[in-house]
């Protein structure tokens, strides 16, 4: 379990990274926290000719707030997000691996790696986050979370592009959030998880809901049917129905070790739990 030999770059600025990607993007991998890339290198599942280390690019790290929007630098450690800022993010990231992993792992790395079982992409999807992406040739573009995740371990990012920032808009007034996950053990990969937000009208009915599922599906997905089923109803009357809709609408990622019917049942229960927490 030793990686194939590769060239190593240690840039200091985003501009340098973009130049390296413009030249070598097709054959390079970006190293952030390394919590996913390094095992993949060691298993020789990925065999990049170059590894571009982002850890020296100070401008990529850190969280700031701008008009209520949380702007998270791609190199911000997961542990830092867990410790403060957005409550749903913090709640979900407690489930992301072990503390040692979260101390190294980064927000941008979790998004760009797009492991279906990863907590952060699903939470960002539920929060209608967006991603700032830069490249030497194309300048900067913004991709909504809804459009970002196209398949297992696959995003909209092109080989010459760099994810630089994650923007999390503020939650509307009278909005609660909840997160529920099932995993074989603390720190293990999730079997399924659901992130939820629930916005109430002044009369206590649901004005809007967001629901995103992780691990049970090939990519993090929004549960549009379940979200719609909640609108205009009181949460305590609508949550069980929403859970049932969620179970029906997902395409479960079953395999030889886990059944699709179980994943549906699990998503129903986790939807129920996440919504109850959001409504509380």
């Amino acid at each position, binding site marked *: *379990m030793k*990686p194939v030999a590769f060239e190593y770059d240690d840039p200091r600025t985003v501009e340098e990274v973009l130049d390296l990607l413009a030249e070598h993007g097709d054959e390079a991998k970006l190293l952030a926290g390394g919590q996913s890339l390094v095992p993949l290198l060691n298993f*020789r599942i990925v065999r990049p000719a170059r590894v571009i280390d982002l850890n020296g690019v100070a401008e990529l790290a850190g969280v700031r707030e701008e008009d209520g929007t949380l702007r998270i630098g791609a190199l911000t450690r997961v542990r830092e997000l867990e410790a403060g800022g957005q409550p749903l993010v913090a709640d979900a990231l407690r489930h992301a691996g072990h503390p040692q992993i979260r101390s190294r792992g980064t927000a941008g790395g979790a998004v760009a790696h797009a492991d279906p079982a990863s907590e952060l992409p699903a939470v960002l999807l539920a929060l209608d986050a967006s991603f700032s992406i830069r490249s030497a040739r194309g300048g900067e573009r913004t991709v909504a979370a809804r459009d970002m995740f196209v398949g297992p371990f696959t995003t909209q990012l092109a080989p010459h592009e760099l994810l630089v920032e994650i923007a999390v808009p503020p939650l509307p007034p009278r909005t609660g959030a909840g997160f529920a996950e099932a995993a074989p*053990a603390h720190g293990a990969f999730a079997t399924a998880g659901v992130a939820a937000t629930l916005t109430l009208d002044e009369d206590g009915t649901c004005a809007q809901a967001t629901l995103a599922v992780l691990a049970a599906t090939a990519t993090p997905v929004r549960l549009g049917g379940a979200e719609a089923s909640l609108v205009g109803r009181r949460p305590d009357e609508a949550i069980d129905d929403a859970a049932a809709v969620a179970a029906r609408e997902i395409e479960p990622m079953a395999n030889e070790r886990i059944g699709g019917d179980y994943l549906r*049942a699990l998503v129903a*229960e986790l939807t129920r739990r996440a919504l109850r927490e959001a409504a509380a």
Partner: protein
Amino acid sequence: MTRREDVAFLQGTARYVDDVAVPGTLHLAFVRSPWAHAEVRSVDADAARRAPGVVAVVTAADLEGLQPLRGQPHIPDLETEFVDTPHPLLAVDRVRYAGQSVVAVVAESRELAEDATELVAVDYEPLDAVVDARTTPPANVVFRSAESAGDVEGAFAAADATVSASLHIPRLVAAPIEPRGLLAQYDADDDLLTITFSTQGPHGPRRVLSQSLGRDPALIRVVVPAVGGAFGSKSAIPPEGVVCAWLAIELGRPVKWIEDRLENFLAAYQGRGMDVDAELALRADGRILALRARVVGDAGGYLYPQGAMLFQRSARMFTGAYDVAAAAVEVVGTATNKPPNGPYRGAGRPEAALVAERMIDHAARELGLDPIEIRRRNLVRRDAFPYRNALGMTYDSGDYERCLDDAIALLPLDDWEARRDASPDERPIGIGVATIIELTGGASEAAAVDVDEGGRVVVRTSATAHGQGHDTTFAQIAAEELGVPLEQIEVVYGDSSLVPAGIGTFGSRSVSQAGSALVEALRKLPRDTRPARSEATWESPPLFSSGAWLAVVEIERATGRLNVLRVVAVDDAGRIVNPLLAEGQVVGGALQGLGQCLTEEVVYTEDGQPLTITFGDYTLLTAAELPDLETGFVETPSPWNPLGSKGLGESGAIGLPPAVAGAVADALSRFGVRHVDFPFTPEKLWRLMNP
């Protein structure tokens, strides 16, 4: 008293085998079979030999004259039909499990060696694989034995009731945090081969190396550095280790093989792996009249390091802590296309405890008796020791009912029974009990003691610490016996050139056997302050510790998640030298036992492809999963050694699983479930509760 050896471990200064850096060391990597079963038609290693940094590429043809590895085939006094199936050092013309080593590549770095393994072309002709030990063809039977005592047929004919059950106990990996590894160095001037090896005792590996290499054991030195856990999985030298040693001699340079996690999952021997059909003959009052059982052991591709031994010994303990007059067991081992079977924490004892405890639970349900009451009616009584069980194992000492009483007092049982009875179908609660025996001790260990003019005492023991805390425990034994401060005692272990020969540290034997040898050596010293030296060995039959475990679980019907709400354990390991370390053994074993309950299972496809090859596929529990666990101790001294000690190292792995299994069956009884095999994964439990 806290462990005095921990500073180096906590500060990261302890030296493990991979930390031992010798200039000029070469590194070893293996080409491993991608097939579970295949003929090896040819090997083309020319490109690998020309690759950068490569020093040698070796196949089985280069190892002619070396002996393949044979384990202890079967219990010596038990007549056994046996097919000699040694493990080749490298595959000769056939591979029998995916991951078996076929070609060895030696290079200037591990990276270069791995690069070169990709250039080796092996022509395989795949063959059908045999994976499920229960359905193997008759030709795959590699050992068979049967023994019985008492009138088993008569007991079944006269029984008021009988119960029967089939249990499947999956294979597990030991998964020590440090995988296996060794550094081999050869000194041509002295013709001395020195092996720095992450193992559980220096003398056993030296003997196997001597046999395989055809080398005088006096010309082999085995040094054990700091060891990052073993749990039985480092008791034997692996084939790769022998190849590494041979290469160091052939090449005249140090050669290192540090197993990585993938290799450990693919090729390290695996524990458990046993199917049991068992029956009990019962009297209406719950007394067990006879046990009958058939064992199918999943032997894997080769009978090394153990063969039939663990399965046969396990079967002799199927009557557990209960007084059963008649028993008959048949043990069959079947070859499968998987790595060999070998010892893992408990090594046959957890399997036996599961059989005994599940069967008596079935008996309780069949007869409408309380699970605790039926145990009381069958436990070996405190005045019956030494007690010889039906299949010839002699239990030296114990007070099984007292352990049970103490455990019930810790729970407390009445409150939990009320909570269980009131628990809703959406969250049923179950209570399980296990009254277990633990085969410990046995065979010989040795000690040597030197006292210098200053009164400093050097203790050399054949036991070899790899996490147990021998440095503290053996110093305590010596300090107490001599009446000198602990700081005056130095403890030396893990070097065949320094310590007297013994078996090593496994099977919960170190305090009772090596500790007793130490006491004997200390008692030979003159009772004054003169410099002196003494040596002693200690040998005894096995000693039987015991314990009572109670577990309370709750299962979420919506998700199938199992929550362990409370566990209490009262163990009797005779005299306890260090209570903190004793509790640590129980707690650590319990967490490993809980892993067997909840998540752990080695999984292969029908073609013999392993699906559990990373910690992402094979979930180990961490301290975060430790349930509310309370321990207690009863000290019934063993009459068979000067310390009065019995062993404790496997108690948790033996006692917790059947207690939790009983609790799960209890919780699911309202769903018509009688038995569930390990592991209790959420999906499995969900299906049982939501049919």
